[in-house]
């Protein structure tokens, strides 16, 4: 334990409104804490800069999964375990269910939240690739009201987000319009469980006969933030997966990925490895479309 806990404050206002009021009154002073699976690690190693924390862990207003005709709305305080146990998500958003299942361990899934995973804004985070591919939107709330932005516009840079100091992430909304799409997700981590991604790719494709009518790809650890790979999508849209064309399509996809990916060398892997393995995962997906 490398922090002196007596130097930290933590309060738990009873309602969401009270939390928002406090954030608005002293913008930037308080850091929200939900499941604590990131911030408590920072505390343990002596690197938690924020001295005043505001608990949102207990706010029932943030912990829900609501399904309507077009979308599934997930409260930011929903845990990975909640997501794994939800039948609607398992059916409609299998990529999100998979990514929740391999986030940390069971104990961490019981505490960690979807909102926390997004706001912590690690480029290696597990759920963003699926959410990016699904075209999620995020609803941000403050005392001034709410605003909804496409999730693709949320991550601005390394650990930088569109969240203002007085705002909280409230809801993640994911369209349920992927019936009939080919869906594929794969994480390459340091081991089979309790692992941080070296890279991960979430892929969705809609075929029109043997033509890729639409394709959406989200990636982890290929850039300074979770990445929606619009370049690869543009390169592949309209291409054919017919036997005679497949190799050219695969080449086009790999080339586009090599161009778009800007992975780094770090303690877990190398940029070269990440690039090529992500390309292999993309190729694996493209070839699977033929089957």
């Amino acid at each position: 334990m490398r922090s002196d806990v007596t130097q930290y404050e933590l309060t738990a206002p009873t309602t969401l409104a009270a939390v928002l009021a406090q954030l608005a009154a002293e913008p930037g002073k308080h850091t929200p804490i939900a499941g604590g699976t990131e911030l408590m690690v920072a505390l343990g190693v002596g690197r938690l800069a924020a001295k005043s924390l505001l608990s949102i862990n207990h706010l029932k207003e943030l912990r829900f999964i609501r399904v309507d005709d077009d979308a599934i709305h997930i409260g930011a305080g929903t845990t990975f375990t909640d997501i794994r146990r939800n039948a609607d998500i398992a059916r409609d958003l299998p990529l999100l269910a998979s990514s929740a299942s391999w986030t940390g361990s069971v104990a961490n899934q019981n505490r960690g939240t979807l909102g926390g995973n997004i706001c912590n804004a690690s480029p290696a985070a597990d759920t963003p690739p699926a959410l990016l591919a699904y075209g999620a939107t995020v609803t941000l709330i403050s005392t001034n009201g709410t605003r909804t932005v496409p999730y693709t516009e949320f991550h601005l840079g390394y650990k930088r987000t569109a969240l203002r100091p007085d705002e909280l992430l409230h809801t993640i909304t994911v369209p349920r319009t992927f019936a009939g799409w080919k869906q594929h997700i794969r994480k390459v981590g340091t081991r089979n469980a309790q692992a941080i991604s070296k890279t991960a790719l979430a892929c969705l494709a809609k075929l029109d006969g043997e033509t890729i009518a639409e394709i959406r790809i989200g990636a982890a650890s290929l850039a300074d933030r979770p990445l929606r790979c619009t370049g690869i999508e543009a390169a592949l849209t309209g291409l054919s997966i017919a036997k005679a064309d497949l190799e050219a399509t695969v080449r086009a996809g790999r080339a586009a990925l090599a161009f778009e990916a800007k992975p780094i060398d770090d303690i877990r892997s190398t940029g070269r490895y990440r690039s090529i393995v992500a390309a292999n995962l993309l190729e694996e997906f493209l070839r699977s479309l033929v089957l």
Partner: protein
Amino acid sequence: MPEPPSLIGASPLRKEGRAKVLGAARYIDDIELPGMWHGATVRSTIARGRIRSITFSDEIDWSEYAIVRPSDIPGENVIVHLIKDHPCLADGFVNHPEEPILLIAHPSKAALLRAKAAIRIEYDPLPGVFTIEESEAAVESGDAERIMWEPNEAAGSATFGSANCFRQYQLYSGEAKETEAGLAKAFEEAAFIVEGEYSTGAQEQLYIENNGVIAECFRDEHGNIESLCVQGSMQCPYYLVHALTVVFNLPEDKCRVIQVETGGAFGGKEDFPSVIGSHAALLAMKCGHPVKIVYDRAEDMAGTTKRHPSRTRHRTALSKDGMLLGAEIEVALDGGAYTTLSPTVLSRATLHAPGPYRWPFLRVRSKAMATNIPPHGAFRGFGAPQALFGIERHMDRVAKVVGLTPEELRRRNFLRTGDVTVTGQKLHEAFDMNAMLTRVLKEHGYHEKLARFAEENKTSPIKRGVGFAAFLHGAGFTGSGERRLNSEVVLRVDKATAGQPARVCVLVSSTEFGQGTNTILSQVAAHTLGIAYDDVYLAKIDTAVVPNSGPTVASRTAMIVGKLVERASLKLLETLRTYSALPETCDRDTFFAATERYFAEHETLRTSVRYEPQAPVFWDDQLYRGEAYPGFAWAIYVAEVAVDMNTYQATCTRFDALQEVGRVLHPVLAKGQIEGGVAQGIGYAIYERCEWKEGRMMNNQMTNYIMPTSADLPEIHVHFEEVPSVHGPGGAKGIGELPMDGPGPAILNAIENATGVSFHSIPLLPEDIFERFTSLGHLHGGSEDIDATVDRDTEVEAPEVTV
């Protein structure tokens, strides 16, 4: 009267198991003493240099703290292991990152955090050497700036070391000149000469309980230090006693050491407790309170010992039909910044380097090099896994060149009963590596898989393969080590009291840290005395009470200490027969009845025995020849792997471990030992890498030092052969370290079988496989076309086949 069921080979409940599953077992961090303070270590932030200044910030009231500097040390500023080159606290100069410079103590842990941040140390940095190669290069180029270690008479290293080299050995399979001549002839006449270089990385022990101790210092009425008491998590309490006698200049009986429940060790708590134990005792001396030091994970990983990295070079001469004619082997270890245990680790590496084969002529040259890395130390296997990785990878390479299967090459060259090893040791006790190989390959389904995978791999993106490694592991201390240790074991019979029937107490310094010491030694005593397992218990390990039965290392507890317990038990029976009319055939009732008769006339009943070799064991340290170990365990391990060509991740998908261990004392514990060792071996082979930067471990967290989880390991099938040995109780030999030896080479051999590409270094991570495939020009794998006469890895050409 029916014979009671044998306790040897039964699986009675682990002695301390109940306390462990209840969470009632008390480890060092669970213990508080009245008035106890907490200690912390201020460490170097650079790898090598002079300490220019140490500044204490004014913001802190330093009078609240105890601070220990080198000048406070009452005895020598040395942590003694084999020699005296390792300072207790760096005095003016640091030789590795995280080297202890100052110690501080305070009643509050949080106050230590503030104080550490308020101490500023400035250095004049000097260049360091961080690999075996850099250390060698400094010597070869005469770069005095980078000579970071010199032999020193005062330290006791003058006879054995040289610049940047702690120790070297030369092992010949016979008289030196004759062997050199034989080698020259062998290489001249060889049909094949095969060369190879193999390397292994550092490995963190990663016991789940970090290092920790609590020390007390007692003074007489004049304020003079009277005695010390240190309790903690450790393997070898008498090692710490020895260290304390030097640091405090006190006699042994004033330095009391108590081992408390220890949460894993694997060698990592063999030599290191001498450091942290001395530190806590110094703080206790300074502040007048008991002082606890418990490292956190990051400090433990960055600051304490690892397995020695190694490089092994082989040059082998073979006949046309694949018989080994001769070999030259060079082993180099990276010892880190101080000598610590490197000479003995190197010795075990040297003796295991030739593997389980017949060598008409052989020379091993070995050396332990100094680098500016925290000293490497003991870790399960102790040099053998490194050397055996070399020979067992090399044998697969040799097989390829010679045109034999790995199986056939080994079958032709295995040692057999009655053979003489390269050190001149005759293998009297029976073993049969060929029969073992047949058995384990069948258990694994090896031949069926070889054929099936070859077919499936043509189209599958997952390439599967099988491979194996054959090896031996010497149990007990090397050479004359056991004679020098002169270990002692005491048995004591406790009289019945009101609440407690009479029991037998085993007094040893052999510690329990998960392997089952308490249980197996109780089994041996109970079995030999003919009493029940519950009639026997082990005395708490307290050097004020227990004799020195030697350190708990080197696979020696079951075999060497177990034999001492067996002999002490026999001696106790003899005493009771002589003085208390114990009948020749006795049982539990007659035994305790006899003890009652004995107590009617005597106050106490105890027997003591000391080590005696059970067969002639002679070792010549100068010539490096003789009986290298009292006994060897023999093993063949088979691995099945899957290599994913999309991610370059190799996974071990099934493992079979067959070993001949003399006698299995406790099947459940023995299986657990083998499985746990295999798991560590799998980690060593394909998961666990220490990332170094200027001598500092950068991934000193469990989140980025990757040990296998339950989701990463295959089914591990454990098989035993039992040929009782005279050296151990009931015939048992040591098994503790053995399972660490096989997984590395077996898995890499399997990866070559799967991919057609041969790898020579562990750990082998996906990034390494990826880089190698890329360099071979086939991103998606494929097969490496091997030209038998060219080694594409070292670009060394084998001579033309001369027929």
